[in-house]
């Protein structure tokens, strides 16, 4: 069980949190490799994928709308389709919604301002591969930094997701930084193997920089990736 699971971090033109994501994942016990977006396959033995933050393709058209056509995204979609663990952070979350792997869409912040600060997050479920180290009683402190993080779903979709327990992460009441519907900060797919969130757990893994709560999310992923890698052997 001490094996370091292999986690692939796709890099698109304009990604800028890929190195931080790798550093955080390594710190938490994974082997993290950056993979250029023109690759058509994930590295052999990949046990998890983390789509990093940034501004892929300059956010042209809509955030994440172009990156989803990268050759590597086909491989990520197949991996997810087979039950593989995929986490999207910020721009990675935007890419996953545009690719149809996660529900909803991320729109410009209601304030139209870029927000960059710590937020308090409430974890609704701790039985997912991405939140197993979290506790429902304790909120997380993790920074956000985005201009388009206003998650939106219409009433019908929202009710469906709520009923399915897919709204895993929310901004603490009264602290919603972007106008997201129902204070949603992170959403999981119905199968429970694809998760996206606007806050940046990779920026909250070192006590020197404030909170280490991001390690609870990324650490959960590393634990789950280790288990799924072991199951494949």
């Amino acid at each position, binding site marked *: 069980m001490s094996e370091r699971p292999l986690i692939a971090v796709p890099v698109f033109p304009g990604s800028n949190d890929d190195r931080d994501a790798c550093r955080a994942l390594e710190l938490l016990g994974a082997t993290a490799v950056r993979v250029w977006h023109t690759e058509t396959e994930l590295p052999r033995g990949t046990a998890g994928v983390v789509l990093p933050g940034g501004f892929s393709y300059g956010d042209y*058209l*809509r955030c994440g*709308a172009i990156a989803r056509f990268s050759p590597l995204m086909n491989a990520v979609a197949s991996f997810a389709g087979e039950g593989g663990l995929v986490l999207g952070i910020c721009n990675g979350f935007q890419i996953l919604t*545009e690719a149809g792997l996660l529900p*909803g*869409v991320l*729109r*410009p*912040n*209601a*304030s*139209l301002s870029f927000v960059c600060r710590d937020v308090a997050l409430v974890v609704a479920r701790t039985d997912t591969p991405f939140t197993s180290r979290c506790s429902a009683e304790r909120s997380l402190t993790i920074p956000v930094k985005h201009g388009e993080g206003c998650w*939106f*779903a*219409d009433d019908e979709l929202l009710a469906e997701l709520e009923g399915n327990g897919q709204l895993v992460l929310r901004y603490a009441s009264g602290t919603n930084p972007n*106008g997201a519907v129902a204070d949603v900060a992170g959403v999981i797919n119905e199968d429970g193997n694809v998760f996206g969130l606007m806050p940046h757990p990779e920026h909250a893994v070192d006590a020197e920089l404030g909170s280490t709560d991001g390690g609870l999310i990324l650490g959960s992923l590393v634990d789950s990736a280790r288990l799924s890698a072991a199951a494949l052997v």
Partner: protein
Amino acid sequence: MRATVLVRPKHGILDPQGQAVSSSLRQLGFDVADARVGRVIDVELTAGDEASARAELERMCEQLLANPLIESYEIELHA
């Protein structure tokens, strides 16, 4: 064949950009009740006939040019 695709935030969807524009117009003294901001995409197609061009453009809108969750689109074909 040339076409223009107009993409707009759907009716009822909050449009903060439109709100900022309308409040700026009011500051300039214009009597504006509301403004909405969308996107214009000019496309040049190789398709010759109108029907197939329109069908092609519909697919472009569904797959890339608009996000159907929040945006509506309108296609204008130019001879």
